């Protein structure tokens, strides 16, 4: 039963990916991207990775779809028509994909307790974390306590992303800059207008 659900979800992912490639309407592309994330989240849930699924649904299907819609309101809704047939890139992608699929043949079987991933530190986390940390959700105790350094680094990365976006996209023109550019103050007032509705 689980296998049927997973095969269905994987097939849906493939269909969505092909649709993403073919469609030129960017609004549909953004929506399909959200659907792709949502199907991925369902797939992660079926693999018992609920924390990952939660993040995928919240970030991939939620916030990033909204951000892409906000970008769409700036750049327009139609992709530029393609000028030539991309034979060479297609060939490179096919070869890379083939090599990757060939690489999976060497992977250990899925869910096998003898896998290397189940042997290094995982047994210690499973045995010790209930009385070392005392938090029922082991994902939380690993993320926040055992690998606290990593999580601090991740938080810093998110903060760095903010700095990057603010430097590139900007906080909007400040009134002083506008005076310096000689555009006057009325521009500063009209810069507070709402963005165009993304679906309009």
């Amino acid at each position: 039963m689980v296998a049927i659900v997973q095969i269905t979800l994987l097939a849906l992912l493939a269909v969505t990916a092909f649709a993403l490639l073919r469609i030129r309407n960017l609004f549909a592309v953004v929506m399909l991207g959200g659907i792709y994330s949502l199907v991925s989240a369902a797939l992660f849930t079926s693999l018992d990775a609920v924390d990952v699924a939660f993040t995928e649904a919240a970030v991939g299907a939620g916030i990033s779809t909204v951000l892409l819609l906000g970008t769409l309101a700036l750049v327009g809704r139609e992709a530029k028509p393609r000028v030539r047939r991309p034979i060479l890139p297609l060939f490179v992608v096919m070869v890379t994909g083939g090599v990757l699929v060939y690489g999976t043949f060497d992977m250990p079987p899925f869910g096998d307790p003898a896998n290397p991933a189940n042997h290094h530190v995982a047994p210690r986390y499973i045995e010790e974390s209930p009385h070392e940390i005392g938090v029922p959700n082991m994902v939380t105790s690993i993320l926040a306590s055992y690998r606290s350094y990593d999580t601090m680094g991740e938080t810093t990365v998110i903060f760095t992303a903010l700095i990057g976006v603010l430097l590139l996209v900007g906080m909007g023109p400040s009134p002083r800059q506008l005076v310096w550019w000689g555009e006057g103050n009325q521009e500063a007032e009209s810069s507070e207008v709402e963005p165009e509705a993304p679906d309009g």
Partner: protein
Amino acid sequence: MDDRIILRVGAKILIPYILLFALYVQFHGDYGPGGGFQAGVIFAAGFVLYALVYGLGNAKKVMPPAVVHACGALGVMIYAGVGVVTLLLGGAFLDFTVLAHEPEHGQHWGILWVELGVLVTVFGVMVSIFYAFAGRRRAGP
């Protein structure tokens, strides 16, 4: 704006529950799926929904850009601050066991504060990025 009454009323009903659910995800993260990152994104989604329905100007009145920018930095500071506190209490950096008399309680306190730091940063960053994109106007005609 006034012709979208269903959207406005619907959003008004939904937003408190979205924010409440974010807090649930945050504080229930020790027991179920979820944690600071997911809670921060959901909390930000509540404000993004407000901005989409009621306009960016109103959203910036509710949650000024200066505040969300500061939130992005504040969360990292809370996180690193927990590490500094553990250092001052005689433990290693981010070793939560020294935060309380019982090591296990110390771990609980440490995880609580650290997750709070993640929540604040993720919330601030997501809303800031949304403001940055939504605040721009289309280039050219």
